[in-house]
């Protein structure tokens, strides 16, 4: 089970990012646990300034903007 965190203060882009990851994970049948992090201190603790950011199993894989579908696929395969 992959532990995925979406960092963001609840703007439209952050919600889109969460939905996209959910969609891709469902399509690929990868079990994921998606958490939304909107606490600013926790977001910054990851070293991320530009939201939305994506953290998978404790590692920042993306920051700033909605990630591309293909990118998400790559993360889930890794």
């Amino acid at each position, binding site marked *: 089970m992959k532990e995925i965190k979406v960092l963001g203060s609840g703007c439209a882009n952050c919600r889109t990012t969460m939905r996209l990851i959910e969609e891709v994970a469902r399509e690929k049948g990868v079990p994921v646990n998606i958490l939304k992090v909107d606490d600013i201190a926790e977001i910054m603790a990851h070293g991320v*300034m530009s939201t939305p950011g994506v953290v998978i199993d404790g590692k920042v894989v993306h920051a700033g903007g909605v990630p591309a579908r293909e990118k998400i696929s790559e993360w889930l395969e890794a």
Partner: protein
Amino acid sequence: MFEILGNLVAYQWLGLAPGSRSGDAVQFFVMDVTKIFTLLVIVVYGMGLLRALLSPERVRDYVRGKPKSLARALAILLGAVTPFCSCSSVPLFIGFVEAGIPLGVTFSFLIASPMINEVAAVVLLGVLGWKLTLLYILAGMAVAWIGGMVMEWFRPERWVEDYVWKIHMGETRMPELPRTLAERHRYALHEVREIVGRIWRWVLAGIAVGAVFHGFVPESWVAEHLSGDDWYSVPLAVLLGIPLYSNATGVIPIAEAMLAKGVALGTVLALMMSIAALSLPEMLILRKVIRWPALMRYAAVLAVAFTLVGWGFNVVS
């Protein structure tokens, strides 16, 4: 090329008479839609190739620890080319503070970023010509520079929320940025889809309003009510822009139509700057990190700056 297309659709396919109100409106609409969207795709793609190498986290690293003038110059330049979603204002502000970057420099960045955005600049280029575009960009940089300095005089540290000073930013390694040309190409394409996908409604709405204005509002009415020659029309335009929130791209077709009808240039630019950089939603977001006294000064500094720029342009043109 775009004009020919507009003529073709409006006057030949739809059989509207040249010079008629609806004919002119449709012609303007078709011409601007094709022109602006073509430019938009080209520019967003080109900027995407460049941007694949930049991120606010990197900007922070470049700016931190530099002498103040250099830091400010870098912050403004990088602010002009680095995009950030307005929802990132808060983490961005905190990240800059945490890096020990002076608040005045942070304000310069916050002003430059929405005001000078490349989408607006190039659309401006296509619609108003390079001279006005250059003037707009220079004015934006000047406002960002001076605005940040004036903010510093107010000692805004007093009004920064306490928790901001306590946040410790992790030094997590950021994901590798795309390096190869193929990766950058992919990134740029994604940017085009994402940005154009997000703003096309605004742009269309702006063009539609511009087209109606172009076709149906008579010049004499504009000259009487909106000509912007009176001293108070510039501050009025700035005030009008505060509650209106849109990215600059959506405003440009409206600005174009207003200019074509003879509204004074400085008045139009003041409205554009105010809509792009001085917005209520943005203020409410920033309220999470600084208190009202600082925000009110921030808004006032910008409003005064836009008014001065507007008057300046009205005098020059």
